[in-house]
């Protein structure tokens, strides 16, 4: 079986369709054919497509500024032009071929180390864009600086900085310390969960790791100076490990400085306990498992008692790894919880944008929400009463959508849309128009300018839409303030101003107040701001498609500055919303490195008042535009040219490499790719000769070209292979084969694809026990249908489904007869029980026939447990695995005299297997059962221990089989 696995793996690998997984694997779909161009500046080559030219010029300005800043910090000059590849949205960014792996939704950009490419999407905010560019440029400088320092000092083997430090530094040198980061560190300190330096691996790769690293680097800068961090990189040649390099630079041990830092944080944060509280001490926590955010209350009539509508809280969650939309009782999820919709397992609901997008719930129980659907986001309407999707809208010109809000009558919605150029604006849609026949006629743009809009909320009287935006005078520095769009006058007015993040506004049911979250005073708290306006008659603004006059008005809507601070939390509160009666607020609170939904009665809760006087500069009526993003200046750029493929070295390895049919051969494999990774050449060179006489005939070489430019990935190549093999059926034999191949892979969605391959090869096979050489001109064809919705924990899949159905057919062209044919079907289902436990099931069948049929092995830790590896062999195989996977131990530290070893996760397994492989006659089914443990050793290494007993379904063997092996769960 291993052989066919490898074979198929090989095909898919070379067809380049997926994320480095091959037999299964999700797909990176190239929905869009980008026409790339290159803008060259003093230090950068910026790769962009024509729709995002404006963003490219802004990126150029940001990148050049960042370069100068970091050149000063690192004291290093990068002589070559730095490649910067930009995308105008994260949905386009997800299609990049620069790296083969799938990009998680929260990735804001990355730096690839082989060619030093920075790949960054624009997310609507110029400030964040500039920050991400600077963050990634820190990595580029580290990638350049360290080898330079080491090479200068004749050292070639050196430790890089730890991930937490480098990412923390990238944050520290790309942004100001902000309220969100402060909240996360404060939470750690106050809750007593602050990690020791040697335990930071526990949060490796998480956002918390970034923030801890950032805070630590900030402390270093404050105590020792930023220059000392730069000096750290100059000192890398002086020691063999980071701790010693740190000590030489700062004249203190890392552990000592870490403890000093922790102590300084305690002095900083502990005094706040006197006046503030943790959220769960003074409000009612409603959710507990997973991350739960964006609460929206709704009253739905109870069929049993129509006069007493039931109140529910609809919210988003990722309780079991998938994001989902749920609703719960106002008393909490423990009282009543219903899952309405599960995301991330079907093309329609590829991603529900858990943290980025809020949901809207109408009075009659309809949820409007956003999900990624194929390439673009789509707007969905879900009817709670009917428990089904009742409407879906997608817009060809809008790539990303977020945070829809219903109009009071439930016929219209406003939301944020990002167009192909990358600009985020407010849009409105009228569902009551003839939507399905002319979807786009009902869409109008409300803002239509360069600024970012977030989280609109429609007023109960239908006249205003309040939203958060960077269009204020402080928006250039990334700050968000509240603005109100008057649907009658089409004027936008500022409600708040200043260097704050005023976010997620919501109206009270009577429309007299607005609640929102703001970080004024350094803590994210909920504020209530009265709203007064003229009571003009509301006309139908959405029928008029003229965008708003983006002039900031000093007009009527609100000049009230008597705001009330509703919360006073030690951590932070977000996403507030009113209960239907307006007496309670629901919100998301941060505590214990988790977001949970809480509720708070408004009666008697007044944490203080706040002055919300709007600064005149924000409301300046004379300035139509508050600020403009800086673009690259004329003299700094040399213009843009059409992108041309220039191939350069990408990866090289001494590899177990490809064989058209029979498995692996050793050799050197190298890849050459273009800058965008769209075109790839793989080369294989090796030799299996045992004497000089057959040196030339034993040359193994292969060249394969892959094209990933389009949704249909294809490739072709040539190969010549010769090696000795062993087969249970033939014994040892030598086979020489040469020919060509054509490969294709078409992803239907992120989860499904069709793979096809065609080999034409001359095969010369010398079986040692026979006297003559078998020669044949063979045509081999494979066709596979692959489906994968699995999600993984530390040791393997834990939820979802995986499916592979493959047909293979080899024809002897010389003799005009069938050489062999195969069919393979492998289905794996993972039924989630709790967060870290599931029931896993696999059923696999394989059959091959013909003159020289394919044969598979069975037995061992990955297939039929309790039996020796390769215990069974034949052209027919059946295998069934049943396994209960459950958590045993998390974060185990074992002490040794030389230090300690920390293990992230140890998982347990109870299993029962059955299967057999046979040649002609099926004799019986062999079975086994037992227990096992899987230990995650970090990254991709999993140690497996199985203890099992065999059974023939009549009796159980008295022998106990122990098996150690490495590898993921099936």
């Amino acid at each position, binding site marked *: 079986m291993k052989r066919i696995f490898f074979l198929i793996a090989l095909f898919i690998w070379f067809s380049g369709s997926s994320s480095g997984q091959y037999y299964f694997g999700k797909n990176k779909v190239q929905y869009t054919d980008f026409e790339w161009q290159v803008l060259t500046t003093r230090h950068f080559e910026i790769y962009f497509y024509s729709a995002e030219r404006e963003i490219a010029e802004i990126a150029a300005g940001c990148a050049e500024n960042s370069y100068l800043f970091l050149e000063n910090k690192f004291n290093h*000059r990068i002589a070559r032009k730095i490649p910067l590849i930009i995308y105008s949205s994260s949905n386009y960014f997800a299609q990049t071929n620069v790296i083969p792996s799938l990009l998680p939704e929260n990735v804001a950009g990355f730096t690839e180390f082989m060619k030093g490419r920075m790949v960054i999407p624009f997310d609507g905010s110029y400030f964040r864009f500039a920050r991400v560019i600077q963050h990634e440029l820190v990595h580029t400088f580290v990638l350049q600086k360290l080898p330079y320092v080491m090479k200068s000092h*004749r050292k070639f083997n050196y430790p890089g900085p730890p991930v937490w430090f480098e990412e923390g530094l990238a944050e520290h040198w790309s942004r100001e310390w902000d309220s969100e980061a402060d909240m996360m560190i404060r939470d750690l300190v106050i809750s007593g969960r602050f990690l020791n330096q040697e335990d930071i691996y526990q949060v490796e790769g998480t956002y918390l790791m970034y923030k801890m690293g950032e805070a630590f680097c900030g402390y270093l800068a404050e105590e*020792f*100076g930023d220059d000392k961090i730069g*000096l750290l990189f100059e000192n890398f040649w002086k020691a063999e490990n980071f701790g010693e390099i740190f000590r030489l*630079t700062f004249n203190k041990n890392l552990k000592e400085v870490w403890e000093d830092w922790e102590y300084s944080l305690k002095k900083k944060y502990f005094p706040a306990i006197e006046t503030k509280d943790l959220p769960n001490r003074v409000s009612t926590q409603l959710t507990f498992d997973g991350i739960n955010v964006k609460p929206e209350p709704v009253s739905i009539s109870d069929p049993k008692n129509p006069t007493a509508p039931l109140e529910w809280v609809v919210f988003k969650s990722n309780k079991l790894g998938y994001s989902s939309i749920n609703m719960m009782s106002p008393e909490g999820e423990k009282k009543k919880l219903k899952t309405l919709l599960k995301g991330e397992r079907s093309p329609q609901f590829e991603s529900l944008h858990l943290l980025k997008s809020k949901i809207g719930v109408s009075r009659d129980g309809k949820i409007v929400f956003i999900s990624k659907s194929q390439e673009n986001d789509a707007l969905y309407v879900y009817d709670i009463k009917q428990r089904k999707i009742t409407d879906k809208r997608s817009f060809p010109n809008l790539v990303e959508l977020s945070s829809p809000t219903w109009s009071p009558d439930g016929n219209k919605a406003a939301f944020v849309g990002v167009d192909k150029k990358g600009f985020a604006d407010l849009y409105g849609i009228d569902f009551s128009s003839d939507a399905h026949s002319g979807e786009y006629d009902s869409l109008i743009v409300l803002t239509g300018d360069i600024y970012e809009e977030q989280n609109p909320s429609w007023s109960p009287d239908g006249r205003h839409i309040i939203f958060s935006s960077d269009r204020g005078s402080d928006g250039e520095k990334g700050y968000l303030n509240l603005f109100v769009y008057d649907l009658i006058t089409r004027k936008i007015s500022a409600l708040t101003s200043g260097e704050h993040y005023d976010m997620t506004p919501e109206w009270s049911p009577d429309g007299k107040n607005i609640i929102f979250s703001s970080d004024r005073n350094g803590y994210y708290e909920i504020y209530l701001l009265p709203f007064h306006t003229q009571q003009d008659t509301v006309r139908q603004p959405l029928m008029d498609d003229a965008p708003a006059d983006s002039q900031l008005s000093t007009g009527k809507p609100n000049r009230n500055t008597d705001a009330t601070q509703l919360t006073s939390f030690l951590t932070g509160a977000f996403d507030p919303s009113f209960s239907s009666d307006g007496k309670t607020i629901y919100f998301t609170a941060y505590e214990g490195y988790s977001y949970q939904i809480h509720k708070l009665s408004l009666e008697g809760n007044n944490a203080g008042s706040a002055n919300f006087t709007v600064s005149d500069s924000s409301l300046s009526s004379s300035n139509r535009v508050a600020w403009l993003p800086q673009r690259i200046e004329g003299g700094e750029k040399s213009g843009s040219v059409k992108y041309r493929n220039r191939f350069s070295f990408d990866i090289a390895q001494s590899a177990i490499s490809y064989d058209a049919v029979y498995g692996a051969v050793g050799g050197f494999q190298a890849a050459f790719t273009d800058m965008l990774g769209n075109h790839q050449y793989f080369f294989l060179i090796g030799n299996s000769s045992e004497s000089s006489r057959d040196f030339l005939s034993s040359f193994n070489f292969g060249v394969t070209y892959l094209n990933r430019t389009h949704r249909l990935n294809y490739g072709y190549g040539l190969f010549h292979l010769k090696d000795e093999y062993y087969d249970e059926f033939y014994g040892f034999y030598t086979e020489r084969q040469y020919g060509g191949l054509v490969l294709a892979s078409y992803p239907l969605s992120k989860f499904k694809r069709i793979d096809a391959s065609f080999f034409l090869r001359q095969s010369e096979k010398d079986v040692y026990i026979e006297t003559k050489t078998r020669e044949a001109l063979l045509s081999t064809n494979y066709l596979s249908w692959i489906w994968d919705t699995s999600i993984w924990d530390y040791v393997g899949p834990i939820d979802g489904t995986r499916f592979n159905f493959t047909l293979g057919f080899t024809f002897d062209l010389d003799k005009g007869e069938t050489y062999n044919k195969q069919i393979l079907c492998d289905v794996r289902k993972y039924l989630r029980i709790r967060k870290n436990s599931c029931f896993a099931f696999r059923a696999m069948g394989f059959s091959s026939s013909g003159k020289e049929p394919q044969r598979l092995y069975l037995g061992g830790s990955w297939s039929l447990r309790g039996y020796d590896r390769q215990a069974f062999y034949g052209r027919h195989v059946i295998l069934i695995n049943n396994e209960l996977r459950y958590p045993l131990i998390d974060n185990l530290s074992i002490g040794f005299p030389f230090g300690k070893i920390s293990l992230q996760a140890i998982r347990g397994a109870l299993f029962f297997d059955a299967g057999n492989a046979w040649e002609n006659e099926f004799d019986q089914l062999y079975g086994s059962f037992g227990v096992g443990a899987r230990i995650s050793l970090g990254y991709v290494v999993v140690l497996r221990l199985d203890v099992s007993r065999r059974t023939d379904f009549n009796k159980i063997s008295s022998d106990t089989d122990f098996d150690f092996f490495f590898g993921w769960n099936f």
Partner: protein
Amino acid sequence: MNKRTLLLFAWSVLLLCMSCTSAFKLKKIESSDSPGWKSFRGDAQNTGFISTLTPTLDKLLWKYDMNRAVKFSPIIVGGMVVVGSLDKKLDFIDAVSGNELGYYKIASLVSTSPCGDEETIYFGWYNTKESLYALNLPKKQVRWKVILGDISASPKLKGDKIFVGTGDGSMWALEKTTGRKIWQFKSQNSILSTPACLENSAPWESDSLSLNTNEEMVYFGSTDGFLYALQAKSGKLNWKFKADGGIYSSPAIHDGMIFFGSVDGYLYALYLKDGSMAWKFRTGEDIYSSPAVTESLVYIGSNDYCMYALNQKTGELSWKFKTEGLVHSSPIVIGDALFFGSYDGNFYELNRYTGELLWKYQTKGMISASPAYYDGRIYIGSEDGYMYCFGR
């Protein structure tokens, strides 16, 4: 003994002889009338200034392959260019011809500029054991070596003492002849600045600026952000001044004032007598370069790519010249010309009064080292691995 055994024996003896050969090789030293450039910044006050005829630079006289990036500044003693190499040795090069004269091999990398005279060269390196060496040139021997810890700043020779800062924040005063410790002063962080020394009878001293001590003084900056003024004899602190950033720049003394840059971006001018600030000037970025000071102007490079010339008394900007890279290289002023390198790879010659570009030479690497002057020639190393000599 057969032929093969004999050959093996001979080969072993040869290897043994080679391994016993001294790590110190040096051809005969010529005596020279020229004063040379005997330490980083050229003199005890770190002025980087020689009032002499302006050298004419219009061509590269020679370049010497150092085999590794040249990050440190050379000195010139006895007609030899002496420069530390990242190739684990101290190189001796004929200052006129550019031919190799010899080398002294060490176990690790020479990480500073040496100082010395025709008799003895002093240099420090990164070593947890003996890190400051005194080499007797005529005898081609190590005169003494002492354990001080990581040395990343150039030592300074003054009278019978040698001063050097170390990575643990200590400033050491040692006996020149024996290496014996005289005193040790501890700052809060690494010292990367070369000390400037002052005699008690400076000829330019005016009454208003006169020092309130008769002691010889030593001044240095630390990456802890302080500039320290110590009594050279005892190591006693007279005063210290806090900048807003670490001090990597070596201070320069002239006319009762001391000048230095800091990574806070400022060039500071203090009164020597009490360390009070006369003025400060903000450049665009951090300062790692050391100032050169003449009778009227003070010059310093900055990470904002610029070389600045400021009025020595007022701090007023006289001119600035923009290169295409960071300027860590410390300028020197010879006659009417100012010389320095930049991370853009260029070696620059400017008119010191106007900042006008007179000449430049493009090397193939960044220039972080500082130039040295000897007998009408300018010497500078580049990170392209070459030591360059310019002149006519």
